[in-house]
């Protein structure tokens, strides 16, 4: 690999890692608080992309406004999922998992019926052109993902560590029973976790809409990567998810450049397996007492 290709590949990796981080953090948070996996997380990502498709591509809103719209809309979808799926199935992890798998298919069909299936929805690139970094060229639309990821993760960190509700959320994730004894309302916290989870997936989808093919099935490709990241990072660890996302971003990008995307996916899963052998709790997960 020559130097220009190496620089370009590193730049590609940083962007990919940022995208993975935004997508996976919400999944990690939901799992941390509820101990349940949301199989429809990829479809939340898809919903965010469709919000941009509707408000930006169809209705002509400014791109930033359309992206901001995705946050409350998909956040509300997260709340509804918690209220109507996870809460009734709280004592049955498998039922919750299967119900969200069903939700994923329902959302795909619903979107397909509403906006059509087949070839991708066309979302114009709002910021055409590329930024030159030491000879590497990154499209402005991709560059935008990087600060967005930093802002979102910083805001999340601030919320979790500096805001009372965020601290309560962390308490629920660490020990729900003790948190309940402290007067924290678990139901409200799980709803908040799903709102944040949905909002972050929606934001990721919204930012990626001009880059990623927008189809009802776009969430499929995302969910596997998100699960790998969350498992590798440590199921309940947001910091672990971010670390794993960056790591996987580099692995996927370099292996795809040198070989292909299937090999990259295989290497990603192999690294996850290796991490779990060496550290069963994940990169930054904690061993249960």
């Amino acid at each position, binding site marked *: 690999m020559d130097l220009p290709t190496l620089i370009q590949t590193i730049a590609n990796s940083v962007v990919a890692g940022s995208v993975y981080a935004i997508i996976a953090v919400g999944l990690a948070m939901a799992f941390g608080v509820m101990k349940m996996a949301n199989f429809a997380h990829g479809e939340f990502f898809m919903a965010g992309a469709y919000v941009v498709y509707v408000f930006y591509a169809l209705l002509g809103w400014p791109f930033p406004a359309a992206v901001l719209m995705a946050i409350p809309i998909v956040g509300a979808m997260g709340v509804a999922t918690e209220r109507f799926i996870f809460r009734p199935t709280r004592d049955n992890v498998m039922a919750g998992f299967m119900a969200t798998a069903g939700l994923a298919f329902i959302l795909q069909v619903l979107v397909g019926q509403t906006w059509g299936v087949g070839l*991708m929805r066309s979302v114009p690139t709002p910021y055409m052109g590329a930024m030159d970094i030491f000879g590497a060229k990154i499209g402005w639309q991709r560059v935008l993902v990087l600060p967005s990821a930093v802002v979102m993760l910083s805001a999340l960190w601030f919320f979790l560590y500096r805001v009372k509700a965020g601290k309560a959320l962390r308490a629920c994730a660490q020990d729900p029973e003790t948190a309940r004894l402290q007067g924290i309302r678990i139901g409200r916290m799980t709803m908040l976790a799903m709102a944040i989870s949905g909002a972050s997936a929606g934001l990721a989808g919204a930012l990626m809409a001009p880059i990623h093919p927008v189809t009802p099935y776009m969430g499929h490709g995302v969910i596997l990567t998100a699960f790998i990241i969350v498992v590798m990072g440590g199921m309940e660890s947001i910091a672990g998810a971010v670390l794993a996302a960056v790591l996987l971003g580099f692995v996927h990008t370099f292996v795809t450049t040198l070989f292909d995307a299937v090999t990259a996916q295989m290497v990603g899963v192999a690294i996850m397996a290796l991490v779990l052998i060496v550290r069963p709790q994940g990169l930054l997960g904690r061993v249960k007492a």
Partner: protein
Amino acid sequence: MFLKKTMGRREFFTASSISIAAAAAAAAGSSFEVPSLVGSAAAATPEPIGDPIHIGFLAALSGPDAGWGLPGLTGNQIFIDRVNAEGGLLVGGERRPLKMFAFDDEATGSKALQGAKQLVLENDVRFISAIGGNPADATHPFLSKKKVIYASLISTDIMPDRPYLIAGGDVTPRIDMLRPFYHRFVNPDLKRWAVISQDDTIGLTSQAWEVGSALADGWDVVYDVNYAIETTDFAPVVTALLATKPDVVSLNLSYPTFVVQIVEQLYLQGFKGLISANYLDTESILQKVPVEYLEGAVDSFPLFDDPWWGSPSWQHDFITEWMARYGPGAPEDVHREITGIDWDHVITLKVWAEGVTLAGTVDPDAVLETLRAQESIPSILGPSTMAGKEMWGIDNMVSPPIPINEVRGGVKRVQAVVRFEGWFAARKEKIIKVVEEKGQMHYQR
């Protein structure tokens, strides 16, 4: 940004030793007729009305592949309604109306077999329009047994043991074989050819034929990779490709969704050479790159409003009729733009209809035998032949002339219409050797 062309299109036509479709009319840029035995001339004398002939449409009407199937219903229905408006298809001295039955196979083999059985056993269809691929693999034993003609879009589905499977309405992979020749002819100074497509069956096969053709026409093939069909981020794919410093990047049969992303990455990562593809969805691509970046890019799906066809023409009439029926605010508004798929399935349907009229029967053996015996069969892309034995082991490839387009000011415009057979005959040994080396001949797959 783009490399200087050394020969104009007109010079290309006159200098080329290849036979050019529609010969002088095409070279002059005027219209060429789409003559038809099922057209109005044949309907001048009223004949008795016979039983309807049932036509099947077995393709993805939902799911990710629906873009290749669903639009085909519109074109086939327009064709059927035109035939019926003229009294029906002329078969053995009587006119028989056409009626279409559709089944959504969701691009899966099991659903396709279910659909084939329903269409044949319950709806008694005599001809099936389809996309092909896995559904073709799954349905051919049943359809061969029942002797029902299955028209795939993809020539790579043709096999010697599939006597009733015809294909070729879609110009794949013939256009992918001719594009290196076209670029070589227009830009003889260019040397380095890079080609990518997805790693599914048709991508592998089509790319093998293109690589063989590029080598036969003197290109240095500097990059020949099939990316994983699961790829969602094309930045690393394009980075690896551009490291080989190609003059031309060919996207072969990359699906339109992938093409948009790859062209965007070519633009973002600073590629200055020529772009060539089986199909360019310019409307979607121009949402991602400036119009000037796509100038001169080559593909093979013409627009039917292209002045090339002349006016009046079958193509222009089709557009007008489609817009009046399915366009914005029309009675059956489909809420999308017209695409190449709207007329792609019609190519083979019309050829089959011509065969039925010529044979005077819907018997598939007689129809295919009759079509193979014709020197020229009218099709919506010009005079066709039944060919393909050297490529697929059986003459079941409908082979109309191949339009080659360049993007001009953001719009695709036909630059040449090339007949495939003469070009292939002069190079087939070299090409087939490469395809064999890549294990993609029909007897190797």
